[in-house]
């Protein structure tokens, strides 16, 4: 279970960063007062445009960032005071976390298995299952550097699941994958949900969120504008599908047309 209570994340900008984003303020608010609750056996989607704060929220959940205000609890553990316990429970994958190109998927799978304290036998069993599912077995001894983009992503997913985590946090899990591979990833996420795991993903692909997520929170400019099941969101916005609902919400926030 993930509980986020009044999470606010403010970044301090260096002079260089201030110059880059052309601002005179030395602070930027990535997330403002976000609260949500995601239960086990659910796929929870954070939906929002680029720069909305989805990745920041996921990094806060994964203990990589500390909340400026508010608190986050993962499986009952606070992400700041009990970060190590949180890290035992989660599998985290984002596009900017990569596998070391020097090593083979097999080596990295075993390495991270050891870091997570998984026994040798269990690592072997997990590797067989995951590598087989994602079709990595034939490539498991090649260097990551030599793998295709899709294969790298699949290997990264497999490695992030080595310790059979209770909570799976994926930042845009199908980004850069072809539709066949993307489907195998979303199918696997559904299977994890079936096993009672909590999966939280971020995405800007509306159709993916529609098909995959049990609950969706739409985040625009760091603020949660709506949270609920697909039906609840469509009902409250009076729209036919998620894309229309999203633009309706976007219009409300920006007070104009979403162009």
């Amino acid at each position, binding site marked *: 279970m993930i509980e986020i209570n009044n999470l606010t994340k403010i*970044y301090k900008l260096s002079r260089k960063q201030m110059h880059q984003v052309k601002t005179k303020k030395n602070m930027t608010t990535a997330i403002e007062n976000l609260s949500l609750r995601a239960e086990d056996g659910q796929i929870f989607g954070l939906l929002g445009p680029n720069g909305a704060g989805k990745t920041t929220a996921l990094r806060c959940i994964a*203990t*990589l*960032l500390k909340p400026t205000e508010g608190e986050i609890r993962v499986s009952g553990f606070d992400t700041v005071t009990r970060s190590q316990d949180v890290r035992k429970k989660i599998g985290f994958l984002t596009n900017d*976390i*990569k596998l*070391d190109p020097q090593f083979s998927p097999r080596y990295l799978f075993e390495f991270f298995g050891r*870091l*997570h304290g998984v026994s040798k036998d269990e690592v072997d069993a997990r590797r067989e299952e995951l590598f087989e599912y994602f079709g990595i077995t034939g490539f498991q001894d090649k260097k990551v550097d030599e793998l295709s983009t899709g294969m790298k992503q699949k290997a990264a997913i497999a490695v992030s699941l080595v310790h059979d985590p209770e909570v799976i946090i994926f930042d845009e899990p199908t980004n850069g994958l072809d539709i066949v591979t993307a489907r195998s990833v979303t199918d696997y996420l559904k299977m994890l949900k079936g096993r009672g795991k909590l999966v939280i993903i971020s995405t800007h692909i509306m159709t993916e969120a529609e098909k995959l997520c049990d609950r969706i929170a739409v985040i625009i400019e760091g603020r949660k504008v709506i949270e609920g099941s697909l039906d609840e969101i469509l009902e409250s916005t009076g729209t036919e599908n998620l894309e229309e609902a999203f633009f309706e919400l976007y219009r409300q926030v920006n007070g104009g047309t979403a162009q």
Partner: protein
Amino acid sequence: MKGIGYIMKKELTRVFSDKKLVLSLFVFPVALIIGMYALIGNLTANAEENVNAHEPAVYIQNSPDDFREILESVKGAGDLKFMDAGDDLEVAKEEIRQGIAELIIVFDEGFAEAVQDYKTGDAIPQIRTFYNPSEEYSEAARSFYLNGIIEPYRQTILAGRIGDVERITVFTIDSDNPDMMIQDEEKATGKMLGSMLPYFITLILFAGAMNLGIDAITGEKERGTMASMLISPINRSSIVLGKVFSLMILCGLSAAIYVISMVLALPHISTTFGGGDILEGMTIRFTPVQIIEMICIVVVLVFLYVAIISLAAVFAKTVKEGTAYVTPIYIFVLGAGMVTMFNQGDSALYYYMIPLYNSSIALRDLFARDLSLLEFAITFISTLAAGGILTAVIVKAFNSEKVMMNA
């Protein structure tokens, strides 16, 4: 703490499974340094031979007849041009300035008569020389003429005038005393070694640590592979120590390979290419205590180097930036090593408390057998403490999202 072992194993595997890295880390630097030594030895020997073989062009004005006879019988006297009293020296001087001619020797007019008829109170006859000290040939020609020709010429004249030259010698100094130098041979060679080796050890240790350290920390940050370790449930300090220890092993190994190959290759190079003097009697024996002291100093020194480099690497956002941070430190460390090559005096005790500098002087003293136990202990502890403090700062930085996530 198990995590330290896993991280170390991964870091070492990464290096040793990469053939290019192994070559560039362990093979090329050694080959390069030995090659350079061979080249320098070869060039020095050639240059020396060249100067010795060169036939100097020498102008001689007002030469007495007997001097001329001597010159004609001396091998290697060179290309001689005799000039009379009235001849202008300016052309000859210009040739000296331009390095075309090597030496001008001017005898006073009527030199032979003045010597012959000398009475007490007369002006002493003079020979003047002109040469160009910035030209090696000219310098060598002058030295050859003064010591090899003019001085014997004077002795001959003196013998003619006095009869028994020994009467005016009064006494000699060390003419039959081959044992005049009383010194500990090992200490003397050690002193020579001590002035050179810290410099080389520093060079190799730091250069190795620099490339590897920046790659292992900044490189991992830049490639996005560091974050995957940060979200695993091991202590950040385990990651830091795992990286620091594996870097120490790699640097120590590269330095050991370097020192061993130097010891094996240098005598061979020196006999092949001449220039053996530098290495004369370079056999040096250490007592077990000295060996232990040396190992201790090198180990804590490597620890400190790795800590310094890792610290710079943690704060750098890109490998390029990391290299830019470390380069000035490298120059400073080289400076500390170089000081020992020139500064041979005893150092005050507080110098042994200055990290980096103290290891250099301690190694120098160790080779020269001058390192006291107290000096050793101070060096060891202060270096270890400095490395420890820096490592603690690195662990703190690893816990900072600003540093690790560029947030």
